[in-house]
């Protein structure tokens, strides 16, 4: 009876997908829509931060005054983390989400998505807030440590890096909502 459990599993999956309850399918569709929005947000943030480059018109013989995202490690981390999260959403998150719309009975892959979403939420929160603290310093500076605000000189750079935080923070909220949605979908009884 080695094929017995496999038979039962296939039966159970088919049975669940054929009689899938509409609240669960609605949850899965909402999950997919939120995932697409989060993907767009992180992609836009990564691109917006990654294309920053401002060179000031005055320079001396030895120093050129420029600002790029890779001058500040926190901003580099921000670009990398947004790239990782958008790649995860594109390659793993959205296909698995589509699978959950088609077959609403599976829970193992939903738990896998919960695990990955938690890790990605932590990564994105870290990157977004590290970049936010650097952007705050760029705007205000710090008198105690004698760090001067650079926004007066690098205006375009400052506007860019401030705006690119928005998509990332929005995607963070959406990822948190995704975790909660997945947890609710997992905890429902098989018949809805």
């Amino acid at each position, binding site marked *: 009876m080695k094929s017995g459990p496999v038979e039962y599993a296939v039966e159970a999956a088919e049975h669940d997908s054929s009689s899938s309850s509409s609240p669960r399918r609605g949850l899965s569709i909402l999950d997919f829509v939120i995932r697409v929005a989060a993907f767009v947000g992180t992609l836009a943030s990564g691109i917006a931060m990654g294309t920053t480059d401002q060179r000031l018109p005055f320079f001396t013989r030895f120093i050129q005054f420029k600002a790029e995202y890779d001058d500040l490690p926190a901003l580099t981390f921000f670009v990398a983390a947004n790239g990782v999260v958008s790649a995860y959403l594109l390659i793993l998150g959205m296909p698995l989400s589509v699978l959950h719309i088609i077959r609403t009975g599976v829970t193992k892959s939903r738990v896998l998505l919960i695990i990955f979403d938690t890790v990605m939420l932590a990564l994105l929160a870290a990157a977004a807030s590290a970049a936010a603290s650097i952007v705050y310093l760029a705007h205000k500076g710090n008198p105690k440590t004698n760090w001067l605000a650079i926004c007066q000189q690098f205006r375009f750079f400052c506007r860019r890096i401030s705006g690119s935080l928005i998509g990332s923070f929005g995607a963070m909220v959406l990822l948190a909502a995704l975790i909660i949605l997945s947890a609710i979908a997992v*905890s429902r009884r098989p018949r809805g």
Partner: protein
Amino acid sequence: MKDSTSVDIPETSADARGEAPLFTGKSSSGGGIIYAHKPSSAQKKGLAIFDLILRISAIVTCLAAATAMGTAEQTLPFTTQFFKFDAGYDDMPSFLVFVICFGIASCYFLLSLPFSIVSIIRPQASGPRILLVIFDTMVLGLTMASAAAATSIVYLAHNGNSSTNWLGVCQQFTDFCQATSGAVVGSFIAVAIIALMLILSGASLRKH
């Protein structure tokens, strides 16, 4: 009974094939195939007890990180009456946010202990667990964000930045730098505990 009338409940359709005994949730394969395995009450209770232990350790770790940062201050010996060379956690907004957020997190975990105990007593109830998942997600985001913001400031204090002409201050404020760095390290341990707690809650919510 071997004839296959269409029934609605998956367990009895398995019974029609003789796969599993009646009225139990356990599979005949003993957990080898993932779809047929349902987490039992004992397993959920075990996960809930581990969750309680993680919660208590999260209280302790968050509190330790908050107090380590909150008590970090240093006044340099060449302070005069007119020029004070001192550094405290409230000089940097990131450190202030760090102390506040980890204080909030440790209070939250203290208040969430009753819900965790309820989910030990009633392992199959999913209401308290979902509530804890919702709030744990928010607290994970909050703590990770404040830990990372403090980390970027600590990095700047150690290394400075040549492009923006910010100098590292750790050469002068050595004790302050050490205390804040230690607090940041402890905060990442707290975030790892919170993330593990969230994953376990999600895994133990499975009903089938």
